[in-house]
C-alpha cells in the first residue's frame, strides 16, 4: 500500500485525538480536517490499487502476448 495512505490515516487519527481538546467553536474545523484526511486516504488507496492492477495486467500481457 502507498505510504501516503498511512500518512493521511495517521493525520485523521491525530485530528480525531485532539477533538476533545478543541473548544466547541472550532470543532467544525476539526471535523472537516478529519473528513478530508479520510477522503484523501480513500482516494489514494483506490489509486494505489488501480495502479497495482494495471501493472499486473501489463505483466500478464507481456508473459502471454496475443
Amino acid at each position, binding site marked *: 500500500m*502507498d*505510504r*501516503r495512505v498511512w*500518512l*493521511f490515516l495517521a*493525520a485523521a487519527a*491525530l*485530528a480525531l*485525538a*485532539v477533538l476533545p*481538546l*478543541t*473548544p466547541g467553536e*472550532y470543532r467544525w*474545523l*476539526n471535523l472537516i*480536517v478529519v473528513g*478530508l*484526511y479520510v477522503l*484523501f486516504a480513500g482516494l489514494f488507496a483506490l489509486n494505489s490499487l488501480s495502479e497495482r492492477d494495471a501493472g499486473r495486467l501489463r505483466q500478464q500481457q507481456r508473459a502471454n502476448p496475443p
Partner: protein
Amino acid sequence: MSFAVLAVIVLALAFDFTNGFHDAANSIATVVSTRVLSPKWAVIWAAFFNFVAFLVFHTEVANTIAKDVVVQEVLSEGVIFAGLIGAIGWNLATFYLGLPTSSSHALVGGIAGAAVAVEGTDVLIGEGLRKIGAFIVLSPLIGLALGLILTIVLQWLFHRVKRVDRLNKQFRKGQLVSAAAFSLGHGGNDAQKTMGIILAVLIASGEVTPDADVPLWVVLSAHTAIGLGTLMGGWRIVKTMGFKITKLQPAGGVAAETGAAATLFFASSQGIPVSTTHTITGAIIGVGAARRASAVRWGVASRVVWAWIITIPGAAIIAAVSSIVIRALA
C-alpha cells in the same frame, strides 16, 4: 516605567528579533531557490511584509497570550522574565540540536511553567490552553491539507499546457505574491506573541489597565523587531533552506505558501497563536504528497511530531527553574 519592566520589554523584543531572523527562511526560501529574487531582495521583501502586517491584523493573538494562558494576578515581571528565559533557552538548545521546534510553543510553555512554579497549576486557564494545544496539532494538518488540495487543483487546471517553461515563469511571479502573503501571516501571528508578553508586563506593573488593548507603540515596536530580525540575519539561513527546498517547483512553492498563509490568516483572525514553521512545513509536505510518496519529507514530518511533544514541557521546565531562581534571588 521601572527597570524590571524595561528589561522584560527589551528581552521580549530580542525574542521577536530572533524569531524574524530564524523564520524569514520559511517564507522566502522557495523564492530564492527558484531564483525569482536574490537572497538580499528576498529578505527585504519578507521584512517589509512582516512590518506592514500590523495594518492588516488586529491584536487578538496578543490578547490570547497576555490574558488566556495563565491568570493575570500571577503574571509579575519576574514570572514573565522567567517565561522568556525558558522560551529563549529552549530555542537555543533545540537550535543547537537541530530540532524544528516552535518559538510560539516555547513561549506558551515558558509562561505557563514559570507561573506554575510560583503558584501551582490552579493558575492555568484551561480554555485558552486547550485552544492553543488543539491548534498546535491542527495548524500543520490544515496547512498540509491545503497544500495538497492546491497542488491537485493546479495540476488539474494546467495539465494540458505544453509550454511548461512559460507556465513556470508565470508561477515564479505568483511566488512573489504567495511569499508576501506568508510573510504577512508570519508578521501578523508571531509579532503579536511579543505584543502579548509586553502587554502582560504592562498590566502587571500597572502601566495599563487589565482590560486595555495593546498600545500602538507596542504594536509598532514588535513589528519593527521582527522585520529587523528578518532583514539582518535571514539571508544566511535562507541560503541553507533554499537548497533543502530546491525540489519544489514554482507551482509547488505557490501552493505551499498560499496554503500556509491561509492557515495563518485564519489563526490570526481568531486570536490563535500557531507555529509558522510547522504550518509551512505541513504545507510543503502536502505539496510533496500530491506528487508521489517519495517526495514526502518523512524525516521532517516525524521530527515535527517530536517537536510537538517535547517543546511545551521542555520550555516549561527551564522557565520553572528560572522562576524559582529569580524568586530566591529577589
